[in-house]
């Protein structure tokens, strides 16, 4: 097991290196740079002044030196400063990461709380009204884009109830109630999409497992329906579901970009989008690498979960 984990970690190195090269190159290929934003709309900065700012920001170095410098900063866990604000990136991340983590965790919890029971219900009551309702919900979740659903929820909440989640961000430790008010609605919107894919996969796999011989044996033994479904069928049906959930984590992070913008949450999504728009190279590069490392780690965790769900699976 440990050897397997170590091998996977070793294999992650080229993945991360390739990611770093791609993001570094893409940022340089994009036209425009942070200097134009720093200039504002004045049009009043001369070439000399621009050259000075470029030097201060080390944008005058050849690309290979810029890349080497950045990789060294990442390895030494000192990712540098934002070109736009001058704030150390570590500080920006310390503010933004907890927001996105909380949003993603809540969305995941809400998504799974909705998806698994409805998926099981759909499977066990195939082609009944409740199955169709569950499937409509699932297809809706897949079809409705986050930006549309988020905008709809916030607009109609304001029109019908004269209420929207408090704008801004309050830490859970400062005010748990206000924090939950701010996060529950966006997490529900984000979780709805996650729940859709999970719900459909749960339904399919539970349906498949319910047709297995050992389930028929369980029925024949006279076990109760709840025990058959939840103890014998569901656990075995979960492996593909866990794979889907792992795959959805990327979608969750992408969705967080939109949801954070609509609900004005200062998370990683907004930080990254702003950095891309303003060509804040170090911030974009660091954020992308953080997300890449997170996804690599989560995929490993998902793979390791298989052996817990199905003891026949062994890693060596």
């Amino acid at each position, binding site marked *: 097991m440990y050897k397997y984990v170590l091998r996977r970690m070793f294999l992650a190195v080229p993945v991360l290196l390739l990611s770093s090269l791609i993001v570094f190159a893409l940022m340089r290929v994009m036209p425009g740079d942070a200097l134009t934003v720093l200039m504002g709309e*004045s049009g009043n900065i001369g070439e000399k*002044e621009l050259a000075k700012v470029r030097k201060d920001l080390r944008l005058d170095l050849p690309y290979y030196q810029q890349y080497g410098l950045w990789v060294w900063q990442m390895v030494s866990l000192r990712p540098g400063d934002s070109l*736009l604000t001058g704030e150390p990136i570590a500080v920006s991340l310390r503010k933004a990461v907890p927001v996105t983590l909380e949003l993603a965790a809540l969305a995941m919890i809400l998504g799974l709380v909705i998806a698994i029971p409805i998926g099981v219900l759909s499977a066990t009551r*195939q082609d009944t009204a409740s199955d169709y309702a569950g499937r409509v919900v699932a297809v809706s979740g897949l079809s409705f884009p986050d930006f549309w659903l988020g905008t709809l929820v*916030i607009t109609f*909440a304001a029109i019908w109830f004269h209420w*929207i989640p408090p704008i801004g961000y309050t830490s859970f430790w400062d005010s748990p109630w206000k924090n939950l008010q701010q996060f529950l609605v966006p997490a529900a919107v984000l979780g709805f999409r996650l729940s859709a894919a999970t719900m459909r996969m749960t339904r399919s796999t539970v349906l498949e497992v319910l047709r297995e011989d050992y389930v028929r044996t369980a029925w024949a033994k006279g076990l109760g329906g709840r025990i058959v479904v939840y103890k014998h069928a569901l656990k075995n049906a979960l492996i593909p579901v866990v794979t889907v959930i792992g795959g959805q984590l990327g979608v969750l992070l992408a969705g967080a970009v939109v949801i954070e913008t609509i609900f*004005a949450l200062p998370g990683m999504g907004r930080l990254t989008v702003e950095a891309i728009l*303003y060509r804040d190279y170090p911030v974009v590069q660091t954020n992308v690498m953080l997300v890449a490392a997170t996804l690599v780690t989560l995929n490993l965790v998902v793979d390791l979960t298989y052996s817990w769900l199905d003891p026949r699976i062994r890693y060596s």
Partner: protein
Amino acid sequence: MPTQDPKGTYNGVSRRQFLRRAGGTAVGLGALALSRPISKAAAQGASPYTEWIPANTKAPKRGGTLTRASAWDPPMLDPRLTQSVGLYQFAGLTSNRLVRYAFPDEASGAGDMSLKGDLAESWSASPDNRVWTFKLRQGVKWQNVAPLNGRELTSADIKYCFEAYAKEGVQTFNFKEIEGIETPDKYTVRLHMQTPNVFVAHALAEPISIVFSREVLEEDGDLKKRLIGTGPFVLKEHTRKVRAVLRRNPDYWDKGRPYLDEYIILMTPDDATRKAAFRAGQADFVWMASPSEVEAIRKTNPSASVQAYHNSAVFFGLAMSQDKPPFNDVRVRRALSMAIDRQKQVDTVFEGHGILGWGVPYMYFQEKPLTAAQFGPWWQYKPAEAKKLLAEAGHPNGFSTTLFYYEYWPQMTSQVQLVQAELKKNLNIDVKITKLDYTTYYGRYVESKWEGLCWGFQSGHAVGLDERTYQYMHSKSTKNFFRVNDPQIDELTTKLRQTPDPKEQRAITKRIVDREFDQVARLWMPYDNGFIVAQPFVRNHASIALRRTDGYGSPHIARVWLDK
């Protein structure tokens, strides 16, 4: 438990039945939605709202918190390094200028551009307009925050600040026009200009000309993190992407003001969320672009007060690479102008609540907004004549060109597409449109090496006559983004900044505008007027022409009070 056996026979609703029922319900709901009558105001584009809200006559009440959901968030707090509206939506509240434009509660109307003293009590120019003397208000204190700790503001502070502006940053160009600064005593500042300029006081009244503190710059090396001034509010907190909180300055020199205890700006990038915040009472005033949006919000907030914003100039137009063929030929520029139906844009894109488009604020040369006829012959929609003119210029079969733009708001895309369609239909000009992100657009635009067409802008941070004429139209100015290169305009704009008599100024400005229209030097496009919508208890929040209270006109907040 399961009503389903493993073989899959069903005992409930069939798929066909379910789809039929669901489809019927959807069609019914759709029909219901479509059957709602389109409102008359939206269809006709009429604006029943007032253009000016005069000062409230009641005695102002003190206290309370004003909240606004804002689209903007400043990247930093250093006024030397950014002219972003995100910063000036509150920098004008923490800091003062030497002079300022009239506040809404003292202005005669939306077009009142008169100057008032801010840190300066009085000012005068030498006969040749090269030396300007400002007499400072006595007893003005910096905010009682370390390292200033409430010390008195003196002329040395002004000298230091202006020299720092000239030395580094985005305002260098303007402040470099000051040749030297004298401080004969604690309360007198004398500016020696390199060239005669009658608009020095106006330039210093621009929202971006705030006075910052020496101590912070010396201690921090920049002003990126702390903004301490002499203004009515102290910046208590600025958390990027979350909020800015401004607390009343108890030691403010304008005794009794401001009236509010706090002004909170919530950084809210999404437009729908800002409107929802207003509906839900989390924001006290909000900007709306179209009459139909106002009408929609009035359904849930019928007592909201609405000011139809009064735009006296536009900021966007079709910039042509007029230093190169074919746009260096005035006939081509005139043909383009005559082939575009601007009134149609006003009627359709802006629902009738917009202006046809001109670049110099009308109040600088006439009393009322321009009528279509006042633009002259080349600005009337005459496609047949346009076609003829283009043929005379050697392009009887049209030509191909490019147009790049950044979508500042959705209506802009509609405008760009209308222009593209009309140029094709009327002149057989193929326009290839490229929509860019802001940074790419901005970089390409100000670099001024592009070809073809661009949906160009002039900035909104400065509203003075010199800014709108010399700075944007003189061929040697770094802000001449539209690439105007006309000896007559150069001569007139230079002469204007040396003409002290207001009557003569108006006459020269009129000649500049007429020349601009005649040469189609800048092809202005229609622009929305928009609306400021406020909760019914907000008083004295009206916006003045070119200075919206939620943007560069933020100093107005010092006069706002809450009637509740």
